[in-house]
């Protein structure tokens, strides 16, 4: 049997097992647990760290101001992280417009997102800290829904349902489907207390956690991931408000997306290594199913994609040599005949691979239905789904290869390119 067939079978089985496990847990969770009502009983501080965000900072503050929450229990803290542009001046205008809810602070030297958030936490008066990125758009009712999930004292963080805001180009369309997959997965992880990543774009934390266990790790390039793993390692809980819709604009070019993913994946590798004690039975489903499945799926799918690409390149080389042998004089080469259709039917339809592919597309579609319903998204995602199905695995493998090279050669990973 071909090496790639063995890989596909192993991946398929892991995928089937983990998806079954997630669905069973989610089903049990919904049957046992009553959905919390939206709440406004806690004071909230929204912290917006900004570094050279003059293009989007006004939109972000407006989005935060439009959040439907009692005025006396809610403040917005903008921390300018030593911007070289007009971010501070723009933010300051909101504060000076007789708007006591908006407070703006400036750091003279850029210290990174973690340090800006920590300054914001120091200045915050709310019981709940919300971290909000400068390219985030929040549904007005999402905050109440998230606060409603802080029902018990050991719930230290609540993540929303993240989506991509009006995706128009190929990169954002692909990200939209990926984010929708995340909505399903995050909820199922929450059902077994296995959330290990909180979205940096918009997440809620109890301030008491930072007071007891320190703020964000200022040296960490994925400080949101680190704090989620720290919450897990200290035996607290993370919840997910799957109906609290929050949208990010997301990177719009191949390069900016690559830079983001390089940061995410190198951060994931480093942080998982630092928190390797989370693996194993002492953390329940997180250490026995969720993390091992994630690691093995990444490893196997990247290996498979590399193998498929190498095979495809060898095939292209062979075809080119053949065409070269006839001096590239094409004749009926691309004719689609009944013969070709028969080839397809006989070679593909009876193949195990096709059946497995159909199964996974069906599962992915199920994730989409779940996420769209929860986020009340009405737009069509068919094109985005097709783009995702065709291109994501190649992009995913590419990002992981680049990130691994950065880790192996100890290259500096930047937050974003200037």
């Amino acid at each position, binding site marked *: 049997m071909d090496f790639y067939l063995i890989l596909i079978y192993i991946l*398929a*089985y892991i995928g*089937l*097992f*983990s998806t*079954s*496990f997630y669905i*069973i*847990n989610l089903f*049990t969770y919904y049957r046992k647990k009553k959905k919390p009502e939206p709440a406004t009983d806690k004071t909230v501080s929204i912290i917006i760290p900004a570094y050279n965000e003059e293009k989007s900072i006004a939109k972000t503050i407006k989005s935060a101001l439009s959040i439907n929450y009692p005025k006396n229990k809610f403040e917005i803290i903008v921390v300018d992280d030593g911007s070289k542009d007009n971010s501070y001046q723009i933010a300051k205008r909101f504060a000076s417009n007789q708007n006591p809810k908006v407070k703006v602070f400036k750091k003279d030297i850029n210290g990174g997102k973690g340090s800006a958030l920590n300054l914001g936490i120091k200045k915050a008066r709310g019981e709940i800290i919300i971290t909000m990125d400068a390219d985030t758009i929040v549904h007005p009712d999402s905050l109440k829904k998230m606060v409603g999930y802080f029902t*018990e*004292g*050991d719930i230290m963080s609540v993540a929303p349902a993240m989506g991509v805001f009006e995706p128009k180009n190929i990169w954002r369309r692909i990200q939209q489907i990926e984010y929708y997959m995340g909505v399903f997965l995050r909820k199922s992880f929450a059902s*077994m*207390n296995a959330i290990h990543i909180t979205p940096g774009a918009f997440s809620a934390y109890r301030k008491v956690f930072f007071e007891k266990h320190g703020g964000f790790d200022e040296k960490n390039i994925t400080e949101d991931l680190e704090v989620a793993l720290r919450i897990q390692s200290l*035996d*607290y*809980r993370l919840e997910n408000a799957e109906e609290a819709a929050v949208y990010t604009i997301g990177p719009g070019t191949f390069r900016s997306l690559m830079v983001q993913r390089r940061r995410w994946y190198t951060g994931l590798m480093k942080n998982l290594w630092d928190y390797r004690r989370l693996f194993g*039975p*002492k*953390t*329940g*489903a997180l250490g*026995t*199913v969720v993390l091992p499945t994630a690691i093995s799926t990444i490893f196997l799918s990247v290996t498979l994609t590399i193998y498929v690409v190498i095979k495809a390149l060898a095939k292209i080389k*062979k075809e080119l*040599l*053949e065409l*070269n*042998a*006839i*001096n590239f*004089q094409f*004749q*009926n080469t691309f004719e689609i005949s009944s*013969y070709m259709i*028969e*080839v397809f039917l*006989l*070679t593909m*339809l*009876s*193949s*195990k691979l096709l*059946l*497995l592919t159909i*199964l996974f597309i069906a599962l992915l579609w199920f994730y989409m239905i779940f996420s769209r319903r929860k986020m009340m998204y009405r737009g069509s995602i068919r094109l985005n789904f097709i783009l995702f199905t065709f291109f994501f695995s190649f992009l995913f493998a590419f990002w992981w290869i680049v990130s691994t090279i950065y880790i192996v050669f100890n290259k500096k990973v930047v937050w974003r390119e200037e």
Partner: protein
Amino acid sequence: MKPERNVPLFRMFLSFILATTIFTIIILISSGASYYNYQRISSQNNIVTKYLNDMDILLNMSTSDCGEDILVKSSIILDEVGGKLDLLEKRFGKKDSRVLEQKKLYSQLELKHFNIIKQIKKQCNEDYITILFFYSNNEPLNEESERMGFILRTFKDKMSDKIMIYSFDYNLNSELIINLKENYNITSAPIAVINEQDKIYVKNIEDLTPYLKPKLSPYVIRLN
């Protein structure tokens, strides 16, 4: 209050059962499809045997009949069986024993068609060009063989219907192939025997021109 950190063994067991069941169903469905294809091959062997008899009849007719009917009928049979063999190779692989058995029958059909063409050439004064192409599916000769086959096919498509190519697997364990190799003194693959005289190995379509263009001169050359 500390959260529960128990390993959910029962849910893991349920998931294992569910995943294994779905996986098994998929394997069974695809194996069923594979078995169905195998049945098709078995039934096809009977059809090819019938075709071999038809070819014999056509070969006998060709000794006295110069009509196009014999050529058309025999070519249709060859194309049909050849097309199916190609599909089976793609589905089961070139080394599959069922495919190799099928290939032996196809080689017999090719030889009979080759003999029909020889008869027509002799009886009806038709100048067909016959190419016996010996290829290998074994590494490392398979890539060269595929490329040479591609060149020959392209040349035929470009130049004339009067070129007849018969492909034989050099490594096929068959008496017919052994005899052919002996008759034409074939000791390696890929190689082509043109009109039972010239043995050539080509790397580029241009390499065929000196051998075939003079022979094609009586016909209209469709493309250049």
